[in-house]
């Protein structure tokens, strides 16, 4: 049964000469940006061209492609009431102003991801990453977010897993569930590894991050006991204390306490695991909720600052456009050639499966109008993509030699600046030992060698940009640690929240076998399942820190594959829904990104499983080191027989996981194909679990700014509303401070 077409005709605006001129200019800006990126080789170019290319493309894509998807493909219906309107309870379900929801949705999807992947991918030059981030978001990532949001909105905000079960079947649904759980474990391990690498041997960093725990506890106490709900007050206090913690980190690093806070990676792993367990079993109000506020404010604030900094400083990109690692696949940061590994490494910012969980979670329960999925879904994702572009810029403005010294595994660089300088030279880049020492000194770190994981590189780039705008070289160390703090803060929040979600899923699943486990208030059950989840990511974290081949090098591809696997699930659900709802003609909108994503993910999995190159293939790696053990030989970078057997165990585990992920993708795809073929052959039999149409009583604009027609509509019902009940969410044009009075008005009904 096809979904009902919108009853009203679309308001077709006539194309004015003015808009033709404006959009031609926007297109020109983008085209000139791409032109400069395409034509300059072997010379430094300004980051301004990257910005022009990205922003020009985003504007065109938003104006034309997302509008096409909303109007032609999804046929969003402004007369249809959203779950927020129908089920409005003032708390979980509530029609929220589109601009506020855009902010909430963006804050929920943007995290450390878009700052890590693009930095690592910079080993292949700035161009591959930039092209994929921009093209990927326009045709895949933003489409996925918007379409998932739309379908979830039509299903009362059902989650991705539920939609997979309802629309594809129990088999595909179960595979999706396993996928989400496995991804959560790998994700948490990789993010924790990023933190551990950034904080190892850094007393300043460790002290600052440690201080966030008492700060969060204080904020939690304040919000729970002293002044409940006063978020603003407590956040102002929290951010002030946080800045103090960053500044005082420098004093601690210079004092006799420095040794106490200088920790080995292995010690940090233990602390992370202990923290992860405690944080996830403590009540939400103590740590998680206040941390969430802190990290959100820090995140949004820093991103805005960074955007301003990049625009004001307009630094030059020092990294080549394309390095030889793009084709040779021998890069030290991660192995493998451009296709498929750039598309695996950069997930968040281009196409991130995780967003489908947010787009099918809180946001669909808050959206005021179906027409707003374009701004909230597509628009927020474009903004995140812009964050990823800034990460590319941050990574590419530092000296390439320094980039490789920071991002190569210790096994390759050795432990001294001399050996590192030589190793970098062997890659075809140059940096002197003195320059390496000076770079570490400038940010007051004992060393910057092998600070893999992306966060330190990003922090270096950010401190470069910020100190160019404010404070000069004197503030470099402060900005570096500010950036580390800001990444660590929200990664720790994710570790806490992710452990809880993993535990919840585990409880839910195991509850089928043994009932008491499902009870979320039964403490022993909570402790047991939390320990399992923490043990899961803790294992990979431990392995990542001790892997002689470099943990990021080994684990990041797995994380990328897992994230893209989730995107495949989301895109498969979207495509199935498009076909089942009679939109076969437009199914390519999500089917093409799905095929691309599957091609990338399966190629990467194939290479990780079957490649003969021991740098790429996990099982090839395993047999090389196993043969070494059998022959009694120690192969570098392993230093002992213990190292050798560590490599063998790790490659086996990683290889088996690659197989698992590939099998999961194939199951979901096969099941979705079955459903789609059935729906195409027999359109009458397709059953949709869509909520029936209810007429909307809310009038609200679709885009960021209200059009002339929308303003007229608002004015017409606004008059009625203010003489009626006057309780519109933000419709009273006098009291709410809403800038232009376009927040949305409920048609006045007098008595309800």
């Amino acid at each position: 049964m096809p979904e009902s077409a919108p009853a009203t005709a679309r308001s077709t605006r006539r194309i004015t000469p003015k808009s033709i001129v404006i959009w031609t200019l926007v297109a020109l800006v983008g085209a000139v940006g791409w032109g400069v990126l395409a034509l300059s080789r072997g010379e430094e170019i300004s980051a301004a061209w990257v910005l022009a290319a990205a922003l020009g493309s985003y504007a065109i894509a938003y104006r034309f492609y997302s509008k096409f998807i909303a109007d032609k493909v999804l046929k969003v219906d402004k007369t249809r009431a959203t779950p927020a309107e129908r089920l409005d309870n003032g708390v979980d379900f509530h029609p929220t102003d589109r601009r506020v929801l855009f902010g909430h949705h963006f804050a929920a999807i943007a995290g450390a991801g878009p700052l890590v992947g693009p930095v690592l991918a910079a080993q292949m030059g700035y161009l591959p990453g930039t092209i994929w981030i921009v093209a990927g978001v326009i045709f895949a990532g933003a489409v996925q977010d918007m379409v998932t949001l739309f379908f979830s909105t039509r299903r009362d905000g059902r989650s991705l897993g539920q939609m997979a079960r309802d629309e594809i079947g129990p088999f595909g649904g179960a595979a999706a569930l396993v996928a989400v759980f496995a991804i959560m474990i790998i994700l948490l391990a990789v993010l924790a590894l990023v933190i551990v690498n950034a904080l190892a041997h850094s007393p300043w960093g460790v002290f600052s991050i440690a201080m966030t725990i008492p700060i969060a506890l204080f904020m939690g106490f304040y919000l729970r006991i002293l002044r409940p709900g006063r978020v603003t007050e407590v956040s102002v206090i929290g951010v002030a204390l946080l800045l103090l913690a960053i500044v005082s980190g420098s004093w601690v690093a210079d004092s006799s306490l420095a040794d106490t806070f200088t920790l080995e990676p292995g010690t940090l792993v233990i602390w992370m695991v202990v923290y992860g367990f405690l944080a996830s079993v403590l009540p939400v109000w103590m740590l998680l909720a206040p941390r969430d506020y802190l990290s959100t404010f820090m995140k949004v604030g820093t991103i805005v600052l960074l955007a301003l900094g990049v625009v004001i400083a307009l630094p030059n990109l020092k990294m080549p456009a394309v390095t030889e690692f793009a084709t040779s696949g021998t890069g030290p940061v991660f192995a493998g050639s451009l296709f498929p590994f750039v598309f695996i490494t950069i997930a968040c910012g281009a196409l991130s499966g995780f967003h489908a969980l947010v787009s099918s979670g809180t946001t669909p329960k808050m959206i005021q109008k179906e027409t707003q999925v374009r701004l909230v879904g597509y628009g927020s994702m474009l903004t995140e993509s812009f964050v990823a572009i800034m990460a590319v810029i941050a990574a590419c403005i530092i000296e390439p030699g320094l980039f490789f010294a920071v991002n190569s595994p210790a096994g390759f660089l050795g432990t001294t600046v001399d050996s590192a300088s030589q190793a970098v030279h062997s890659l075809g880049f140059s940096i002197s030992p003195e320059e390496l020492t000076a770079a570490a000194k400038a940010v007051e770190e004992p060393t910057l060698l092998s600070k893999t994981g992306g966060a330190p590189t990003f922090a270096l780039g950010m401190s470069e940009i910020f100190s160019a705008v404010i404070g000069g070289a004197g503030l470099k160390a402060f900005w570096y640690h500010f950036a580390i703090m800001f990444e660590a803060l929200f990664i720790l929040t994710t570790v806490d929240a992710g452990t809880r979600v993993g535990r919840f899923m585990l409880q839910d699943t195991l509850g089928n076998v043994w009932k008491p486990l499902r009870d979320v208030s039964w403490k022993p059950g909570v402790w047991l399942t939390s320990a399992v989840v923490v043990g899961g990511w803790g294992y990979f974290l431990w392995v990542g820190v001790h892997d002689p081949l470099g943990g990021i090098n080994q684990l990041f591809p797995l994380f990328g594959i897992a994230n893209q696997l989730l995107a495949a699930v989301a895109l498969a659900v979207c495509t199935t829904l498009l076909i089942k709802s009679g939109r076969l003609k437009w199914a390519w909108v999500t089917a093409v990104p799905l095929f691309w994503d599957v091609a990338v993910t399966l190629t990467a999995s194939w290479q990780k499983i079957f490649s003969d190159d021991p740098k790429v293939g996990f099982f090839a790696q395993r047999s090389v080191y196993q043969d070494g053990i059998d022959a009694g030989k120690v192969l570098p970078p392993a230093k002992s027989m213990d190292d050798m057997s560590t490599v063998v165990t790790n490659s086996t585990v990683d290889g088996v996981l690659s197989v698992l992920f590939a099998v999961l993708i194939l199951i979901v795809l096969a099941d979705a194909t079955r459903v789609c073929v059935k729906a195409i052959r027999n359109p009458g039999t397709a059953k949709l679990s869509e909520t029936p149409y209810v007429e909307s009583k809310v009038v609200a604009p679709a885009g960021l700014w209200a059009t002339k027609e929308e303003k007229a509509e608002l004015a017409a019902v606004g008059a009625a509303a203010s003489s009626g009940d006057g309780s519109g969410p933000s419709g009273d044009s006098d009291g709410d401070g809403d800038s232009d009075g376009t927040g949305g008005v409920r048609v006045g009904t007098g008595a309800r």
Partner: protein
Amino acid sequence: MNSLAAQVRYWWRELSGEAVYDRYVAHTRACSPDAEILSRRAFERQRMDAREADPREGFRCC
């Protein structure tokens, strides 16, 4: 000047989530005038309990 301050306050309270309680009170008064309205303390506790019970609510991405 006054209206600018009011606007900043409005947007800040909406974005930071501080306005959630006021919204709940307005909603309850409008929809079921007889219902008992929770105090701010009790309301915030209830929200935290809901989050405790289902951690997927308000989950943020990497």
